[in-house]
C-alpha cells in the first residue's frame, strides 16, 4: 500500500508518520510537498500533525488553501483513503472534507499526554483490525482539539456510526474525566459519509513501537493496510 505524507510549512509529524509507515509498518511511503498536486500514485494520503502556517488565524485555516488541498479533495471524491492526524484533522475540517470544528481546549492549555480511546465501530476501513469496544492507548498533543459540531451534524454523525474513537477511561467507560479537551461526546475521531476520510486528534504514529511506551497505534495502520488488501 502506497502512502503519501503531505508536508506543509510548519508540519512536524511528517517525519514521525513516515517512520511509522515506512520503517515500522514496512509500507512504501513518500513525502508530498504542499505545492505538489499529483496524488494519483497513492492509496492513502496522510495529513500529519504540526502547526501548518503557525496555526495563525485558526489551525488549518491557511493550509486549506495550499495547492495540494484541491488534489486531496479530488482524491477523496475518487474514493482514496485520507487520514488527518491532529493538525491534519483541523485542516480537513477547515477544508470542509469533514464536518465540525476543533476549538481551543476547554481549559485553554496545550496538552501532551496519553489518552485511552474506545473503538466505536470495527466496520470502518480505519478500524477493521480492532474490536468494537477495544481500548487503544494513544497520546495527544494539541491546544485546539475540542471537537464541536451543531446538534444536527452531531446526531447525524452518531446515528450513522461515524464516530470511530472516543476518549474513555482505561476500562472503556466514557467519562468526563477521560475527556482531555472538552470535545462533544468525548469525540476523538470521525469519518466522512463515505468512510474514506478519517480525522483524529490523537497521534497513532507516536505509538507503534513498545520502546516508546506502547504500540496500539499499529491497529489503525494495520486496519488501513488490511482494507487495501481487501479492496
Amino acid at each position: 500500500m502506497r502512502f503519501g505524507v503531505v508536508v506543509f510549512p510548519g508540519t512536524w509529524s511528517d517525519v514521525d508518520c513516515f517512520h511509522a509507515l515506512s520503517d515500522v509498518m514496512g509500507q512504501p511511503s513518500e513525502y508530498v510537498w504542499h505545492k505538489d498536486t499529483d496524488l494519483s500514485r497513492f492509496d492513502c494520503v496522510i495529513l500529519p500533525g504540526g502547526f501548518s502556517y503557525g496555526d495563525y488565524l485558526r489551525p488549518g485555516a491557511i493550509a486549506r488553501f495550499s495547492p495540494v488541498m484541491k488534489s486531496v479533495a479530488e482524491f477523496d471524491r475518487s474514493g482514496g483513503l485520507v487520514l488527518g492526524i491532529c493538525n491534519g484533522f483541523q485542516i480537513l475540517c477547515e477544508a470542509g472534507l469533514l464536518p465540525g470544528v476543533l476549538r481551543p481546549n476547554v481549559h485553554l492549555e496545550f496538552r501532551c499526554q496519553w489518552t485511552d480511546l474506545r473503538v466505536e465501530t470495527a466496520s470502518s476501513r480505519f478500524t477493521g483490525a480492532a474490536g468494537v469496544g477495544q481500548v487503544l492507548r494513544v497520546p495527544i498533543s494539541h491546544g485546539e482539539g475540542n471537537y464541536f459540531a451543531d446538534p444536527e451534524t452531531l446526531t447525524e454523525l452518531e446515528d450513522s456510526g461515524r464516530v470511530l474513537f472516543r476518549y474513555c477511561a482505561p476500562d472503556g467507560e466514557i467519562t468526563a474525566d477521560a475527556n482531555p479537551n472538552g470535545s462533544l461526546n468525548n469525540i476523538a475521531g470521525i469519518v466522512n459519509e463515505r468512510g474514506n476520510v478519517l480525522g483524529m486528534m490523537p497521534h497513532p504514529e507516536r505509538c507503534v513501537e513498545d520502546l516508546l511506551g506502547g504500540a496500539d497505534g499499529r491497529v489503525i495502520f494495520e486496519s488501513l493496510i488490511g482494507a487495501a488488501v481487501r479492496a
Partner: protein
Amino acid sequence: MTHPTKEQLEALALSEAEYEAIVERLGREPNELELGLFGSLWSEHCGYKHSKPLLATLPASSPRLLVAPGVENAGAVDIDDGLALVMKIESHNHPSAIEPYEGAATGVGGIVRDIFAMGARPIALLNSLRFGPLNEPRNRFLFSGVVSGISGYGNCIGVPNVGGEVVFSESYSANPLVNAMCIGLLSTDGLVRATTGQPGNALILVGSETGKDGIHGASGLASRNLEEDREMRPTVQVGNPFLEKVLIEACLEVAATGKLVGMQDLGAAGLTSATIEAASKGGTGITIDVSLVPRREGGMEPYHIMLSESQERMLIVTAPEDVDAVRAVFDKWDLRSTVIGRSTDDGLVRIFDGDDRCGEAPVALLTDPPQYRPQGVKPAWLDELQSWDAGALSLPDVRPDEVLARLLASPNIASKEPVFRRYDHQVQTNTVVTPGSDSAVLRLRGTRKGLAAATDGNGRYCYLDPYEGGKIAVAEVCRNVSCSGAEPVALTDCLNFGNPERPEIYYQLEECVRGISDAARTLGVPVISGNVSLYNESEGAIYPTPIIGGLGLLENVERHTTIAFRDSGDLVYLLGRSTTDDDASSLGGSEYLSVMHGLVAGRPSIDLDLEAAVQRACRRLVSEGVARSAHDCSDGGLAVALAESCIAGDTGFTGELSQASRWDAMLFGEGQSRIIVSVSAGSEPRLLEVCRAEDVPVVRIGRVGGDRLTIDGLLDVPVADLASVWSNGIQRAASGGAP
C-alpha cells in the same frame, strides 16, 4: 561625535575607562554607530568581560570532544557511528522578568538557532526555571507566562521538550531564571561553522525582517539591575515560532547541499555580533550595506539595523557562485533571503548605507574586550550561616508522616506534571523516558544507542557554600544521567549570578566555577559549552545559581532504568552509605529545613571520589540488567525519594531500616552520593559483588510491594495519599495554599 555623555555610555553599559580604551586603540573618537558596536560586543553577554578568565579554568578535554567551548555556537561531542551531539544552555532571565511569555519563547528560539546553525537537527529541549513563591501574584504571573511561552514556542517548532526542573524560592522573586537547553544531532562530516571562511564570500541574511525590537538587549538589558528593566519592555523581542520551524528545515536543507561556508544565528546584538564574530573566526574583514537589509518598519537608522535583535534571522555565508543555488532553497520555503555584504581581506568591519560609509573599525579590536578579574571577598554573613549547629535543631512536633506529606506538597518537590503536560515531549518519536524521572532518555534512530539528559543546580546549596554547591550541581546532574544507566559524556553550564562588580558576588561566581571545575575533572566529564547571566538583582542578588546540563550515552537504549519501582518482592538498596545515617549536618540547606523550620543554613558537602564510584556502580548495575530501578536521593532526602519511586511505580515499599536518634536526618537529610537501586530477589549477590568491586558502601533498606510506604515505627502511609498531595502541590500553592 563629541564625547558621549554619562547617560549615553550607561545605555551601552560601557565605563568611562572602557571608552578611553576604545579611543586610544582606535586612534580617534568613535561615531555613534561604532560606539554601539563596541557597547554590544564588549558587553558581558557577548564579551564575557567578567567571566572569561574563570570559564577558561573549566575542563574541556575529552576523547569525544569535537567542538570545544566558545569556538562555535555550541559544543559538540562525537558519539561514534559517524554521529555527533551538539549541546548548549542559555539564559533569557532578564527578558522573561519583564515580559515572561515572549522572554521565555524567544529564549527557546535563540537556543534552537544556536544548534541548527551548526548543521545539527534540534532533537531535545530542556528548561531549568526558577521563580519566587507562588503565593505572590507577580510570581504566579511570571510562572504562568514563562511556561506558556515555552509551550507556545516549543510546541510549534516540533522539538520535544523532554525535561528540566522548576524551583521556587524567595530569592528569585522578581528575578526569575529561564535557562533553555537544546541538544542537536548531526553526522560528524556535516558540521557547519560560524565563519566567513575567506575574503570574497557572500553574506546572506535570511528570515524575518529587521525591526527596532531588542535594541541594546545584549548591552543594556543583560547588564542592568532589574528594577530599571520594567521600563524597558519595548526592548524585549517578539517570537515567531512558525518562521523558526521553517528556518530549521530550510537551513538544514541548505547545509545538506554542502554549499555553505558558514552559518550563524542572529542572537544578542543581532547583525553586529553575527557578522563580526563570523569575520573574527574567518580572519577576514566584512563590508555590509544596511540599505539592503529588509526591514519591517520605517525610520530605521543604520544604528538600529545593526543592533536590532529581531528574532528568527540567520546569516549564511557562501561562495559567490553558490548564492543562487542557496537562495533557491530558501525560495522553496518562501523565506526571504538577501545578499547584504561580503567578506573582505583587510580585517575591517565597514558599514555602508548605500554609498554612505557610516562606520568602520577593526574586527580584532571589536572582538577583544577588556577582561576583568576582580577580587572576590567572602561575605561575613556566610561564616555565620555555615557555622549553624545542626545538633541543636529540635525535632519537629509533628509525626514523620506529616513531614513527608508537607515535603511532597512543597512546590519544589511536588509533581511538575502541570508544567510538563503543556510541552510536547514526544514529537520526533524518539522519547523513551518522558519528563518525571531523574533524566530523559531518547533513542538515537539507526543505532542501538540512546542519550540521557538532565539539568540541575541547587541555588540554596551554592548560597550556603558556593564551592561545594558548584561541585554538587555537577555531581547531581551526572548522577541523574547515571540513574538511567547512561555514561555522562558532556556538560553545559549557565551561570546565573548577581552583579559581579560586587566583591561578594564575584566570590560566589569564582567559588562556584572552581567547584564545577573540580567536580567535572573528578567525574571526567568535559564542559563543552555555556553561557553567563550576571546582574540578576532587584532588591538583592539571587542565590548564586549555576545550572548544569548533562548529556549521557547509553550503549543499548533498551537497557535503561527509571525511578519507578517495578515488581512486588524486588529488594531495595541504598548505594553510597553503609548505614542509613542520622548525622544531622545532612539537614544543612535541605528542603526539610526550609519547609519545616523556615531556615536556610548549614553547609552542604560532597566527597567526589565516593560520588564517582557510586555513579559507576549504578551504571554497571543498569547495563548488566541487574538494576530494575534507580533514583538519586536529592531534594527531600531518602523518604521523598522512596515516595517518588513508589508513586511512579504505583506500588508500595516496606523499610528495613534501623532506628536512628535523628529520624528527621535519616528520612529527610540531603547527604550526597546516594542512589536507591531496586533489584529482583535473585540479584542480590551480583549487586553486592559490583558494589564491592567499585568500592561502594551499600545497605539493604527494604523491599517493594503492597500499597503503603512503611518504615517501621516512623512512616505508614497509603501511596495513594502521598500521590495525591504530591500531584496537587503546584496547583495548591498557585491557588494561594501553602507557599
